[in-house]
């Protein structure tokens, strides 16, 4: 068991970025097709990142490298811990620590765009953080029900229940999908930085990063996306073999659902984002928890 878990973590470290990079390429192709364009090659994200590493790096200070590097390493660590199947709360806490470094990367520059982007990034964290914690609690309670009393935050335990936890957690799944849009930086919640050109803050948090530093942030985002899709997959995993293709399929469907949302919606203001995210968290997440506590 330990070897399998270690293997999963290693596979993630090796392939995590590739998977998300490829998905990002498919995403761009898919978006282009929806808009009636041909779109770039599916390997375009890799060309982009390779270019960034080959270019000259202009920096404002040494701190930018340190922070971008820490962000990358912490993100890889977060994902690796997730795929190693440890405590999911620990993973989520590591995730928020990693996310903090992106804010620091932005505020280490004195530029108005970066600073503003950092404030918005913090606003996004404020919006999604409650749902993330509630998701972890939801998993715990679903294992409690499945094991008859003894709950567990461990991902290996969550993934080996008798039935997929989505059965008990439909509300939390919806809530998680909602904040996933924020985490993927997709429209309508791509307020701190965006994959698309032309936003009012130039590039938000990454405005003052260039070359190698930007490349590291980009790769870290790939790792982050793979990890997040892993969490989506976790909702569908059980101890039956068929749950694995189901989970992978669900993750892919969710990813393309996010792409569609990205293409059909316009960016909202942060006030609305926080209100919506917290509202959905209370209604979907809170109700789901109450039902689990008092009905099951």
């Amino acid at each position, binding site marked *: 068991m330990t070897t399998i878990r270690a293997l999963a973590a290693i596979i993630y470290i090796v392939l995590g970025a590739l998977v998300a990079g490829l998905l990002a390429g498919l995403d761009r192709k898919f978006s282009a097709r929806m808009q009636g364009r041909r779109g770039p090659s599916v390997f375009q994200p890799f060309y982009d990142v390779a270019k960034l590493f080959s270019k000259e790096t202009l920096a404002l200070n040494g701190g930018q490298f340190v922070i971008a590097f820490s962000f990358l390493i912490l993100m890889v660590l977060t994902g690796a811990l997730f795929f190693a199947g440890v405590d999911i709360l620990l993973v989520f806490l590591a995730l928020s620590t990693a996310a903090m470094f992106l804010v620091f990367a932005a505020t280490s520059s004195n530029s108005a765009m970066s600073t503003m982007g950092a404030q918005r990034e913090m606003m996004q964290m404020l919006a999604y953080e409650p749902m993330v914690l509630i998701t972890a609690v939801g998993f715990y309670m679903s294992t409690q029900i499945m094991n008859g009393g003894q709950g567990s935050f461990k991902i290996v335990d969550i993934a080996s229940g008798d039935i997929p936890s989505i059965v008990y957690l439909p509300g939390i799944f919806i809530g998680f999908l909602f904040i996933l849009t924020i985490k993927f930086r997709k429209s309508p919640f791509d307020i701190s930085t965006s994959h698309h050109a032309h936003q009012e803050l*130039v590039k938000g948090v990454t405005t003052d990063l260039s070359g190698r530093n930007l490349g590291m942030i980009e790769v870290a985002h790939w790792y982050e996306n793979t990890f997040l899709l892993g969490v989506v997959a976790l909702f569908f995993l059980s101890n039956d073999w068929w749950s694995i293709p189901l989970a992978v399929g669900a993750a892919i469907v969710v990813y393309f659902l996010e792409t569609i949302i990205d293409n059909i919606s316009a960016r909202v203001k942060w006030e609305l984002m926080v209100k919506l995210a917290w509202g959905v968290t209370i209604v979907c997440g809170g109700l789901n928890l109450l039902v689990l506590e008092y009905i099951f």
Partner: protein
Amino acid sequence: MAKITKSPWLLHYDGSSCNGCDIEVLACLTPVYDVERFGIINTGNPKHADIFLVTGGINEKNKAVVKQLYDQMPEPKVVVAVGICACNGGVFKDAYNIIGGVDKAIPVDVYVPGCAARPEAIIDGVVKALGVLDEKQKAFKEAKKKKGAEK
């Protein structure tokens, strides 16, 4: 390894243009022309950009701005002057406030004439710039290697 020409990111700057060329530049992004199929992204940020696309001539006020934007772009980089005003000042050439084309402020690699420059011409110009960019990348790499060897 990394071919910079596979992922050229643009910075578009409007000098003292009449906005005619700017609309044509944006037209390149539309489904009809779809420059994204070449991996081109309009970043709007000098620190991420490889190609500096300038429309309109240079005047006293924007000369420093163009220079600063150019300086903030990491090497290797190329400059494309789009439209006749950006090439040499165009109809505004003799206006009291116009200094001239973009080359009065920064070195220009490709000139795309036209009033306004047609999207096809702009794309042509950018593709030509990619060739220059490729050369510059090779030179940049060699310089880097040489520096490394000196160390």
